[in-house]
């Protein structure tokens, strides 16, 4: 009566699909979910050999290299600034947090059609124009890859407030006596941050890094909405889920390869989570 409904739902809607998918991944399953032609590890080998699949993993790495450190630093910085401000503290907190209400679709729209629209009245080009710099076609060219700036800043704006809240909660948990002791020792500014605040935020920092990484791995919404035009997505800048979406649910409905891809991605993310959990725990033991 208590746990039953949840367990049944979890089995039917999470475990059954995963098991079914593992089964499908060993079959030739174009347009069918009850395949008959067994292909063994063929789908997996195809996926690993497919340059498009490998490049989707590279796209994720490139994206993570941009987004993880910038979000981490900016949200920590915002939390530190907000935590030290007495005047209008809740106003500033709300301003940074407000974009969390926005969906990726809405942010993509503002970024694509207003800030980074290729025309001269787009905000980014208007600002460049005030300094006498020519307009930049932010999204229509593959090279130079200006689209990265568009995609990274959109996610940054959406996510900073969320992680700032986590850091703020962490900062509030730090005992004031630590700061008093530091003040008596004459430490201030950067030294206090370096020796007290940052070490005390270790658990929060690790959780934030893991969340940032896992969320970057699942990036789909802003790539899809910013980069696809007239219903077609360019052949470059396809992160794993975008690649999977077009493989499994595009015109081909290739569930065999799609399932193999899903299994590979799930394994990667589970391994990352477990490894990171281990590293965290090992680190704690070291203290």
């Amino acid at each position, binding site marked *: 009566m208590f746990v039953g409904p949840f367990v049944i739902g979890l089995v039917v809607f999470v475990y059954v699909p995963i098991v079914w998918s593992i089964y499908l991944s060993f079959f030739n399953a174009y347009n069918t979910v009850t395949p008959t032609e067994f292909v063994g590890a063929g789908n997996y080998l195809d996926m690993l050999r497919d340059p498009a699949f490998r490049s989707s993993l590279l796209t994720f790495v490139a994206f993570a290299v941009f987004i993880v450190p910038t979000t981490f630093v900016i949200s920590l910085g915002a939390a530190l*600034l907000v935590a030290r401000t007495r005047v209008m503290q809740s106003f500033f907190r709300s301003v940074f947090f407000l974009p969390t209400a926005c969906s990726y679709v809405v942010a993509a729209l503002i970024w694509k059609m207003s800030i980074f629209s290729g025309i001269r009245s787009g905000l980014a080009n208007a600002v460049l124009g005030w300094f006498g710099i020519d307009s930049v076609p932010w999204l229509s060219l593959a090279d130079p890859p200006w689209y990265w700036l568009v995609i990274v800043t959109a996610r940054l704006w959406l996510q900073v407030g969320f992680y700032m809240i986590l850091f703020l909660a962490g900062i509030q948990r730090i005992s004031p006596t630590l700061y008093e002791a530091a003040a008596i020792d004459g430490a201030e500014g950067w030294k206090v941050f370096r020796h007290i605040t940052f070490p005390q935020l270790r658990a929060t920092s690790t959780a934030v890094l893991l969340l940032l990484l896992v969320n970057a791995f699942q990036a789909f919404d802003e790539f899809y909405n910013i980069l696809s035009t007239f219903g077609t997505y360019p052949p470059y800048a396809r992160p794993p889920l975008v690649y999977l*979406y077009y493989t499994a649910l595009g015109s081909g409905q290739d569930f065999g390869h799609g399932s193999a891809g899903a299994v590979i991605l799930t394994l990667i993310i589970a391994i990352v989570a477990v490894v990171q959990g281990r590293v965290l725990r090992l680190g704690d033991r070291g203290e």
Partner: protein
Amino acid sequence: MAIVRSRKQSRLVGWARYSALVVAALLFLVPFYLLVRSAFMREQDLGSPDFHWLPPVWETSNLTGLFDNPAIPMARSLLNSGLIAVTQTVGVLVISGLAGYGLARIPYRWSNTVFYSIVATLLIPAAVTFVPSFVLVSTLGWISTLRGLIIPGLFQALATFLFRQFFLGFPKEIEEAAFIDGLGYWGTFWRIVVPNSLGFVAAIGTITFIGTWNAFLWPLVIGRDQESWTVQIALSTFLTAQSVQVSQLFMAALVAIFPLLLMFLFLQRWIVEGVERTGIAGD
């Protein structure tokens, strides 16, 4: 002397900090400003090569025209989003609340197995398994139905995990008193535990509502027919089709985030708590 200098210095640092905050806050508000400005601009002003700080003419017909535009089923998609977000939020709260309480308080034989299977599920983000879920939902014949959009999202391992942790910390004495009065687990849960946990319920509820309202990948995969579009899918279709009516597109986006902006205005406290609870679940 040294004290005076350091006081001056700290005042300087204070001003620098404050200016940095103001500049950053303005930058964060720019996209909202552009959204509102563009939603009330005329099409020809949006397309003109000059940047306008304010609409030269405030165009309100973007709003009325939006609901008459057959290319974007705005009313229907808002209704769908509302229905999905409300039922999903209530469903998750009831299902995960019950399960979390059961796991925290009732000694089942399989409690540990269930708990570890939940933790294992937490490692796998739902988005990565959208292909398997799509396969199941299409086999059930639930493509382009509200059932298909709502039911698979009702069983949230994270929410159940959080409810379990929360109920483990619930004061046992209160429950024991209720038990002595003969309420049993069911009665104790609904009459004693839930009324005393409304803050936590609000935190999980608001976060679930926001996540569902803003969800994109699953509604994109399942909502194939126009009748089953959520407002995010309607917007996205309008956006990626590069439709000519850009100002109307901005108005549509403004309408789409309006309910959540209201929530932020009135329920921010619970949303913040929800973020804190869900974000650091790994601790």
